[in-house]
């Protein structure tokens, strides 16, 4: 027994050493956000209109992008998963995953900006008189460009995460629900949902934390006001005055804490026996 434990310990060692990097980084972000002045910097940003509106804008934008990605990705997978067992349809769906996020963001600018392909094509077709009549969907104050980019880029990821779940659901269960007199909604809630829920929650956490705090896409396709929290943090970090640095740390630490609480709540919810029983590894 001891032998086994030793070997498992050795196998976990690389991952343990790796974990030092993010945790050391995070702890030092916390230390530098305090800057030896207690919670002063937190007080400052929590009273800052710029920070609060940025935080709200970020949560709103990331939340919409994540929920829309998951709903569309779930619908796509549920509807088309029998087709996705073949390689070539799968490869077609994976296309956006081949590009970095900001490159896909640039693609959205090419397609949807006021001088983009769509606008030009509409004018050439005579549907639109002038490029200025095309709606502003990129670098817009509503974050539409950011949302479109993320949704477009994350749907393939959602499909990737959900596909194994759908492949493992036995179709007999649907027949069982049918034979008991259930309808499509019952089929979804009693067969799909219990299998999907852990993966859906995890997908939500992964995508939401990424879209909430990633810098590249909003820097490319967002505006200066309101700005995403990552852009604000990056600006404070590299800003003209050194005094803003602790503010950058405080802003990013607050974002992290928000995500941490969200994660803990989700995992606590999922660790209830009912959901644990659905996981492949039974304790």
């Amino acid at each position, binding site marked *: 027994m001891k032998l086994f434990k030793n070997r498992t310990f050795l196998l976990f060692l690389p991952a343990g050493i790796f974990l030092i990097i993010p945790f050391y980084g995070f702890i030092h972000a916390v230390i530098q956000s305090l800057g030896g002045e207690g919670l002063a910097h937190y007080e400052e940003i929590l009273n800052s209109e710029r920070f609060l509106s940025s935080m709200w804008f970020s949560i709103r934008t990331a939340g919409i992008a994540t929920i829309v990605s998951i709903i569309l990705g779930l619908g796509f997978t549920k509807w088309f998963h029998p087709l996705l067992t073949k390689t070539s349809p799968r490869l077609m769906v994976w296309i956006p995953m*081949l590009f970095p996020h900001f490159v896909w963001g640039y693609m959205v600018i*090419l397609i949807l900006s006021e001088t983009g392909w769509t606008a030009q094509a509409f004018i050439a077709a005579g549907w639109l008189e002038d490029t200025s009549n095309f709606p502003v969907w990129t670098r817009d104050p509503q974050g539409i460009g950011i949302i479109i980019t993320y949704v477009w880029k994350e749907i393939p990821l959602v499909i990737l995460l959900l596909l194994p779940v759908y492949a493992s659901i036995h179709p007999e269960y649907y027949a069982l629900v049918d034979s008991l007199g259930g309808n499509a909604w019952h089929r979804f809630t009693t067969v799909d949902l219990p299998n999907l829920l852990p993966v859906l929650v995890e997908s939500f956490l992964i995508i939401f934390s990424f879209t909430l705090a990633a810098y590249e896409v909003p820097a490319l396709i967002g505006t200066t006001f309101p700005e995403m929290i990552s852009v604000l943090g990056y600006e404070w970090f590299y800003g003209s005055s050194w005094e803003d640095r602790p503010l950058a740390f405080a802003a990013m630490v607050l974002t992290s804490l928000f995500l941490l609480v969200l994660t803990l709540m989700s995992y606590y919810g999922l660790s209830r026996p009912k959901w644990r029983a659905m996981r492949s590894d039974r304790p």
Partner: protein
Amino acid sequence: MIRKKVLFLILTLLFFIIPLTVLLLQSISAPWRFHTGQGIDWGWQEYSTLFQNPQLWEATFISIGIGFAVLFINVAIGLFTGKALTPYAYRGKAWLEALLLSPILIPSLAIAMGLHLFMIRVGLADTIWGVMLIHLVPTVPYSIKIFHNSYQQIGKAMMEQPHILGAGFWTQVFTVELPLLRPAIRSVTFLTIVISLSQYAITAIIGGGRVLTLPLVFFPFLNNANTSIMAAFSIWFALIPVFMYIIIEALMMFLPYSRLPWRNHR
């Protein structure tokens, strides 16, 4: 079923194939000005303009170097951890998995900012090594997940076979596990390299602008290059993972029991 197929084709064409095709077309033609009534001017000059930029080549090599190093470390950590997570179910396993996933739930910007001073102190700031380390943060959790899933699919019983027959640890890894983990290695290759190529902010912070990777060239380009050159640059971004994937696929042919690749697909 036919209606489903047609709908699937329409959706994938509209959202995935056509954008890619148009991007390709844009990259091999001068910027389009349909509304002024001009036609399309085909040519490769956008690529040659792009490749004349010495920064592009430097950045490409550095990005590929970092990509391979990050990939290698990812496979090593993913393999060991996936293997360690698999055999037994125990209490707190869900929490352990959450802990291993947490580096991608904490904003990488916060981590990079926090590590900045440390990297300066130990001399890793502004170096390619520091950038490699920070690129592990958003990639390793995915790799652990992928390898863990693969090991679970292969199954505990299959893993016991080589052990019972008398194979040692490394023999087992090379003769049975790695060959069976090929699909996982493919996914990890793609994900790791694309993620590594996606990092602008954390590369800029840790690399201090001195470690020139492709994103660090892409962003300034936005201000002074035309759409066609940018389209060519975008295509370049997708070609790198494909190129690296081909190399990995070729390397995997050297794994034991890969002699009949045309039969392995059956």
